[in-house]
């Protein structure tokens, strides 16, 4: 597997872990607001995940012409 595909897989796994962390915080603390920390980190990871997918496709096929 090429490096960029590996990076996509890793960011996907980190996003899943952030979801698990959110659920864990929600279930084990009284402060639901704390659950937003992993959620927001998860969003940031999703942005990287999508950026990598776009970059891989652009490298393969070129940029989409609008």
């Amino acid at each position: 597997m090429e490096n960029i595909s590996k990076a996509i897989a890793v960011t996907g796994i980190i996003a899943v872990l952030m979801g698990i962390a959110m659920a864990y915080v929600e279930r084990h603390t009284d402060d639901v607001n704390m659950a937003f920390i992993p959620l927001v980190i998860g969003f940031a990871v999703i942005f990287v995940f999508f950026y990598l997918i776009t970059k891989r496709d652009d490298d393969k096929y070129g940029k989409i012409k609008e």
Partner: protein
Amino acid sequence: MVDLLTTLNDMIGVWNTYFWRISFVFLIGLGIVFTLKLKGIQITKLGSNAKLAVSGVSEGKGKKKLSSFEAFCISMGARIGVGNIAGVATAIATGGPGAVFWMWIFAIIGSASSFMESVLAQIYKEQKTDEGYHGGPAYYATKGLKSRKLGIFVAILLVLTFGVGFVMVQSCNASNALCGAFEFENNHLVFAAIIAVIAAALVFGGFKIIGKFSSTVVPVMALLWIVFAIVAMAFNAGNIGNAIASIFANAFSIPSILGGGIGTIIITGLKRGVFSNEAGLGSIANVAATSDIKHPIKQGKIQSFGVLVDTLIVCTITALVVLSYGTFEDIIGLGLKGSNLVQAVASSTPMGDAANIIIAIFMFVFAFTSMIGYYTMSESNARFVRDNKITVNTVRIAVIIVAFAAALVTDVTIADNISDTFMAAMAAVNMTIVALLSRQVFEAYADWKKQKKAGIEEPEFHRSVLSDSSGVTEWK
């Protein structure tokens, strides 16, 4: 036995929380990304999206394929369900009036995801032995990502979630709604038989019959619900201004009577919003694929509009019925949730007990049309695994038996939790697949815009506009 069921339910509840939080990261995160990438198509092109949704009324006459309007109505049938009545009331009772604000926000974000999944479903749709089009996550995973194993996994997940779990839940809801309003001896058995007979007539009639049924019943019932809700609100007209103000005033602060923080409001709004409009879950993509249209973008625009209709109109109207009852303390003081709360509020108006019966009928019709919508999704996916009469008829008979049996029972909490957990898993898988295939959607959208710019009223799609069209079989 009861202890075992309680333990099982608690265990599933834990899994449910974990799976849904994983899904939230993907659903909202990718929803925001798609919204930005599509330049807010769901809002900036709202007018043209709405026009497309109703413009297909005359399409598809006399064919076994569905018009874009029929597909829109089936998807609205699946979307506009018990969640639009009971779900909204529960959101307000647990997250305060501000939860409605967050339902709106997540509907706007989710409609971009709905656009993406619907376009992909159209690009990778397949014509089956019934001459109709079928598609959805299983199809685009197999043909787009070239993974038949992943496709079969998703297809089986969908058949179990919708064909068994959700049919069970909706049939139970439909039957309970009627039994609550019309009490007589053996009423559960009578209503179970009625539900099974109508379901059998529709599922053996095929998608075209279901399309006709949904395109007739759904718009009428949605309009009637809006009329009924406006009448209920009119009796408390003096409180509507306050009701709207309370949604905004409580968007960032939860009423002290409930306790908790902003997290409670946002999570409640998010959960109820996703349950109601189903954006990004992969369910609506199955229906989006069934229509016979000239460009995949058309179905994407129609379905993204459907998400907004579901939440911004239908859910908001239900919310206003509840909130116009009085102060939030008055509402909480009733000590009710779900459809019982809506019934209590509506029957406190001069409509009296008649409101209870009317809401029960709406609950029955919405639950029934949702059930039929879910059936179409399971048939599409059963055809994906094996497209022959034996498989399809097995699914049809199983769905009718499940609908009949579930209509006899009063509580399907475990089935509800199991299907809900499967759905959460499916949402994360579906959104990941959509992200991996997103280039196809952006290329199709660039082509649509190019043709529109050139003055073409109804753009036509050719697979040559895609960089990789190897899995596309139904487009020239």
